[in-house]
């Protein structure tokens, strides 16, 4: 059984490295061959991940004995949906790249980097040793940097270097602060085992120390989430990144931050997080409104979706801050929902940007409704989900986050939280406004020139599957909420009702 788990990590690691090396030492691997190898790898990995999620094996081996670090990997209800999301989207980006191949440098390096990003994300969600969590967190960094710096939008090289550098430097600052927090947490509680940390609930740590450690961890992981005002790396990174990079970044890498906050702040440092939660909720709601307002005036479509990510992650932050089981579940649901919706939108917009030659909304284009109905319907579903329409996946996370914040845990300031909910509702209104603005600009109308091809093949199958996921999870949110209930209740220490 453990072999499944090891395989899910080793296969992307080995193929990813092999793909990067192969194009260098021997003759270059062709685009099609690289894609085929990559597709097989991601499908096998996804199968192993699903088997791991079902069988729930545990790997727990000593690794760095001098530092007391153990290779400890396992799955629970909180990480299972994220693991499946990661594995599924890794297949999706490879399928999508079959019809929309990467530009820039050798295709084999592109796919190799994708697999290393996948490896880092899987390892992050599987890790149960706090230091291994940090190591896995860092694994995604250089491959993602290469994806942005080498395969990103090449029209403005200075902007590309700036965007990739900003991504790396912000993330390293965040992860190093997180490392300091992790080391302090491990020192204070005497264990690096995240299961033990969750059980201890900060019992051995004084309030003062809890607040310091929680602040370090929240700032560190807040950069990754990203929480306003630490989000300024995200819009340029998304604008420049290739489609696959944007999808991995928005749908998977941002989730590592919120997941880490659940595992390393909320579970082991309840008092410290409780003290900081009001401030955390405030910056979350500022992010909702800030992101929404930016979207209202933004004219670069990719940048617009990046800002909408800031807003959506604001709802996750609000849910986390409420201190209730429902809020935690809402945050975990909104996490996955944003993963699905942002993946759908970035696939769409990446494809549109290649067709249009730019992602500028001010330029008059053919209406998608007229020239490319498939892209059109996917765009409508994506933005409808993004504005939180009931019946679609975006609704539940945001609705439940606001619901939980309206009646937060007893130690939270109720008046402030209710005020924040009102502000968040306003933010949701802004989201409706900018979503409709985009649909009006590029979907409706009757212009038919300049015509472009509709989605087909790999691109359409990926979009269709994501649209289906948006609908299914929107109609039956219980699929996901049931998965996280037990663990969420254990973390908030509330008696399951």
């Amino acid at each position, binding site marked *: 059984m453990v072999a499944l788990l090891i395989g899910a990590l080793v296969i992307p690691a080995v193929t990813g490295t092999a793909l990067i090396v192969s194009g260098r030492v021997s003759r270059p691997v062709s685009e099609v061959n690289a894609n085929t190898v990559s597709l097989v790898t991601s499908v096998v990995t996804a199968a192993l991940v699903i088997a791991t999620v079902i069988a729930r094996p545990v790997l727990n081996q000593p690794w760095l004995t001098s*530092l007391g670090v153990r290779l400890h990997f396992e799955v629970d209800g909180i990480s299972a949906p994220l693991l499946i999301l990661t594995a599924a989207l890794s297949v999706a980006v490879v399928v999508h790249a079959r019809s929309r191949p990467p530009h820039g440098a050798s295709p084999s390096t592109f796919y190799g980097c994708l697999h290393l990003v996948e490896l880092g994300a899987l390892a992050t969600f599987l890790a149960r040793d706090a230091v291994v969590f940090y190591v896995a967190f860092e694994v995604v960094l250089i491959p993602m940097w290469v994806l942005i710096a080498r395969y990103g939008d090449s029209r403005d090289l200075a902007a590309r270097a700036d965007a990739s550098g900003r991504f790396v*430097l912000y993330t390293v*600052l965040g992860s*190093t602060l997180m*490392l*300091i927090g992790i080391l302090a947490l491990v020192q204070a509680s005497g264990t690096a085992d995240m299961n033990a940390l969750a059980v201890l609930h900060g019992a051995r740590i004084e309030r003062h120390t809890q607040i310091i450690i929680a602040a370090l961890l929240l700032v560190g992981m807040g950069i990754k989430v990203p929480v306003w005002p630490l989000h300024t790396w995200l819009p340029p990174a998304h604008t420049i990144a290739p489609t696959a990079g944007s999808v991995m970044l928005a749908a998977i890498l941002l989730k590592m931050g919120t997941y880490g906050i659940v595992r390393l702040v909320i579970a082991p440092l309840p008092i410290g997080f409780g003290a900081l939660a009001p401030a955390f909720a405030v910056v979350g709601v500022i992010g909702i409104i800030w992101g929404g307002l930016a979207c209202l005036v933004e004219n670069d479509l990719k940048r617009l979706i990046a800002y909408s990510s800031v807003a959506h992650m604001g709802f996750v932050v609000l849910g986390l801050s409420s201190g209730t089981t429902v809020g935690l579940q809402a945050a975990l649901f909104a996490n996955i929902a944003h993963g699905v919706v942002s993946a759908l939108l970035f696939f769409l917009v990446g494809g549109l940007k290649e067709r249009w030659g730019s992602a500028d909304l001010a330029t008059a284009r053919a209406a998608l409704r007229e020239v490319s109905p498939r892209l059109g319907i996917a765009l409508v579903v994506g933005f409808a989900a993004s504005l939180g329409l009931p019946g679609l996946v975006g609704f539940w996370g945001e609705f439940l986050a606001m619901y939980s914040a309206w009646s937060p845990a007893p130690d939270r300031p109720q008046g402030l939280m209710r005020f924040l909910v009102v502000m968040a509702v306003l933010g949701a209104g802004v989201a409706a406004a900018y979503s409709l603005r985009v649909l009006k600009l590029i979907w409706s109308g009757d212009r038919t020139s300049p015509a472009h091809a509709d989605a087909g093949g790999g691109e359409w199958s990926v979009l269709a599957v994501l649209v289906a996921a948006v609908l299914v999870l929107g109609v039956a949110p219980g699929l996901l909420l049931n998965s996280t209930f037990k663990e969420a209740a254990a973390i908030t220490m509330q008696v399951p009702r």
Partner: protein
Amino acid sequence: MSAAVVSVNAGILLPVLAPAVGAAVVLVTDVAVQHLRRAHYVIALASLLVGALATFAGLGMVSGTARRTLCLPGSGRCMYVADSVGSTLQLAALLAAVLTLLLSWPDDKKQPRGGTAVIVSLVLAATAGATAVAGARDLGSWLVALELATLPTVALVALRGARSAISGAIALLTTALVSFGLLALSAALWFTATGSGFLTPEAALAAFHDPGRRPILVLAVVVVIAGIGFKLSLVPFHAWTPEAYDGAPLSIAAFLAGVSKIAALAALLVVIRAVAPLGASPLAAIGIVSAVSMTLGNIMALRQNGVVRLLAWSTVAQAGWVVLPLAAVSSGAVHASGTYLLAYVLATLLIFAVVAALVQIRGAARARDLGEYRGLLADHPVLAGALGLGLLSLAGLPPGFLGLVAKVAALRPVVTSELWLLAVIAAVNAVLGVAVYLRWLLTVISTPDAAAQASLPTVPGGAAPVSAQAVRAHPATLVAVGLTAVALVLTSLSPQMLLGLLGG
């Protein structure tokens, strides 16, 4: 052997004796048989490897155990103690010296100034000093060994004879003299405070508990940190570093970055272990020096356009990281510092080896200019890959797992002692460091400039770029690249291999 005489165990001393004897044998051989060149290198390599093998007995020992010799009769005090940290540093110094020799391996055409015998014997002498200082426990041999590790490097830098080499050597010599003065002063202060010629915790504790002697002891420790700060390139004692690195031949710059740093840290650790039981007060200076070194080193490295100067400033920054754990009073601090030093030395030597190979392939002017690294990945994928691994290891990012683990190890004692401000400064410097190394790496993985490509056909004679491609690096240099790259890959896959050497 009578009981009144100091006991001598040559086996334990072999890591020191082997390079020292090797240096003597090289000089004697040179007198007996002239115009030998490679033979000197072979003798030197053999002696270094014998020394390296002799350190194995001391690796991975449990904390508190050590191999001792040169013990005074009766008192039980020993002048030479090789514990696991000391033995590991000795091994690292000997292997780093092997690398230096491989990088300076003579080719068929050029006779180096001074002849190979001089270079080789100077390298061996300095290495013997480095291994000796790691084991020294009395003031006299500690001071002499540290100077033995330093002074030959002045000659090594100066031997090239170029104007820049002379100015580098003068900077180094001036620094070495000031540093020696400070160290001699600190030795005198130590003796005044403790009345003991031994660098032991007992001597330090006795002096520390006497209010009259305590200030002298603290002063001694602060002056030691200043004296060794020169050798470790810590700010504000760093000014010689860029001059000396840039002026010296690459192999000697690698020696300064490798063996010299190991010797300096080994010397510092001898003192730190003696004063660690005293608590924080004398060590607060280290935290300040560490923070300033990292920050200035990284900021200056970001501004460099020559790779050797960049590496020199990177050394300044990394030296700050090396001493960072020592600012904390923690049992793990000495190990953490040793771990970080080894990770730094391994990665830096790999980078120097790659640059040396590129000097042979592309010429010194191109290999020393950062801008000329554009497109290296396309031209020399293997060298570029090795360079990338070294840079990422210094940056502490995967796949350079060794650097990452070293960063974790270095930060841990700081966090354990709740030095939050220092920890946050270190975090900011981790970011600056990443910026320094990724700036270089981005150049390496970029496609060659369209403008540069267009200008190629206009080169007179057309075929020049092609013939430049045909030049191969010297096999010894490639061996050096290969050995360090393999060592870095293995220790990155399993960092415990390196951590285990330092013992538990």
